């Protein structure tokens, strides 16, 4: 494990948590900030795609079996996941070599917020994957329709939460681009 001199001690548990998913993640240490940002974004897209695949399978099976209530719920969830992926794909980078050249330097509090938001976003999307997997499993186990719909909606809710955390993270990154007045 490499050293993380710029990472505050308070957020170290969050960094460790993210490293369980992204081993290369080292927080926003100097010189690796863009890499960290790209890692987070790629992981969210990857996880979102995974959840989407599960939900898509549910949608296909439900439609083929003319279970339109489940299919419609699955369609809504996939639409939400597509929205998350698009948000992540076209989000603010702010992580190039001019990370600090925007105007002001990142404070320790900014780094704390970023790392915490990274952790929360990854956690949410990971939960979404698990719930989507559970939903698909419930469908294959002939569970009641309402239970499957509930799981799909929970997945959608997690994706929405992840989108919210990611947008908050973008806001922090956007704030670094301007000097404090």
């Amino acid at each position, binding site marked *: 494990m490499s050293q993380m001199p710029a990472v505050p001690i308070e957020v170290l548990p969050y960094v460790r948590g993210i490293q369980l998913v992204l081993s290369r993640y080292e927080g926003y240490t100097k010189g690796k900030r863009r890499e960290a940002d790209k890692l987070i974004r790629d992981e969210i897209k990857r996880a979102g795609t995974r959840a989407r695949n599960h939900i898509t399978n549910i949608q296909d099976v439900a*439609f083929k079996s003319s279970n*339109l209530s489940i299919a419609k719920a699955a369609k809504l969830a996939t639409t939400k996941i597509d929205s998350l992926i698009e948000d992540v794909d076209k989000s603010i980078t702010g992580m190039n070599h001019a990370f600090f050249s925007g105007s002001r330097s990142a404070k320790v509090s900014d780094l704390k917020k970023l790392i915490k938001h990274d952790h929360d976003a990854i956690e949410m999307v990971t939960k979404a994957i698990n719930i989507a997997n559970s939903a698909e499993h419930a469908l294959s186990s002939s569970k009641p329709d309402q239970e499957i719909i509930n799981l799909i909606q929970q997945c959608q809710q997690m994706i929405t939460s992840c989108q919210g955390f990611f947008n908050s993270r973008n806001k922090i990154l956007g704030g670094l681009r301007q000097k404090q007045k």
Partner: protein
Amino acid sequence: MAKLVDANNLKTWQAQEVVLKPNEACVFIVDGRIGDILTEKVVGNIAGGFNRFIGEMMGVTAKDRRLLFAMTGPADIAIPFAGHMPNGTKVNGFANLRVQLRNEDIPKLLNMFANSAPVLDRRRLAEVLHNELMMRVINPSLAECEDDTMLRSSAFQDKFEMRAEVELRATLTTLGFTMLKAFITANQTDSEKLTELQAQLTAASNTEGAHAEALMERIAIREAATLRRIECEVNVAKAEAAGKVTVELESELKELRKDEARWEAELRRDEGKLDLKLKESSHKTEQAMALFEQVQANKRERINQQMEHQNQRMDKQNELQMKMMEMAAENDALTPEVMQEFLRQQTAQKAIDGPGNEPEASAEKPNEYLCDKCSKPVMSGWNACPHCGIIL
């Protein structure tokens, strides 16, 4: 949407540089192997250049380099279709598919370019998907559509979208696309055109009717306004004429009232004068009557005195005659001659006493005359008749 570029054909002395924007990505295929997928990056020395030329000359560079560029933003594909509903109604329009290339799926585009031109645009993708879309999505969807109402319903669109996703997923995934959205845009059917025509005709009729009603209403309003204006003008003319007449009458009335007042004043003056005259005449009458009464009283008193004096004298004479007769009787002198003489003297005496009143009455007669109106005696010198009150 995507283009496969053979970098071996790029022969320039100046090294080429490409800036990949967020919605652009590039996949390097080097020596038949899929390399990095780059986006949001400035890719320098991507082809050409003297260094690469030297490397190729020395045989240290890759033998085959291809660049697969792709747009990663959502793209709308409009695929024309024509079909029939179970009731025979022909339906044509476009099936819109919104697809997207994800970065990790871009290399799958090589399946598309394997046996065709190295350029993929929307038209080509529509052509690729057309038959499958018609057979697996549009025709089954139209087969379930009973009428125009169902064709326009949201349930039909939802079902079409899910069917498109399910049926085309395999093909799109093979080509590297992810379907985001699908919907059908059906043109107006014949029955809808007929319904629209009927609605338009009805609307035209209603519009014409509404125009006619509005026109009639407008005419009625104008008529009412004209009549009202005429009525107002007549009323104004009447009022003006009445005003003029009133003014004239008032002026005449004022004159009349002035005359009336004058006449009343004159009447009061005349009445006052008459009253004064009447008062004066009545006063004179009263005075005359009082004088008359006084004269009459004096006359009656004088007559009474005369009558009394005459009676006394007659009594004295009768007494004297009686005494004379008695004396004559006592003296045996009462002869017929004496009696005759006595009667003769008595008669003479009566004759003397009798006409004593006559001369006084006849003496007063010339002072009286009869009133012209009531024919009653009035005294000369009276101003008014005491019986009828006229001015004498």
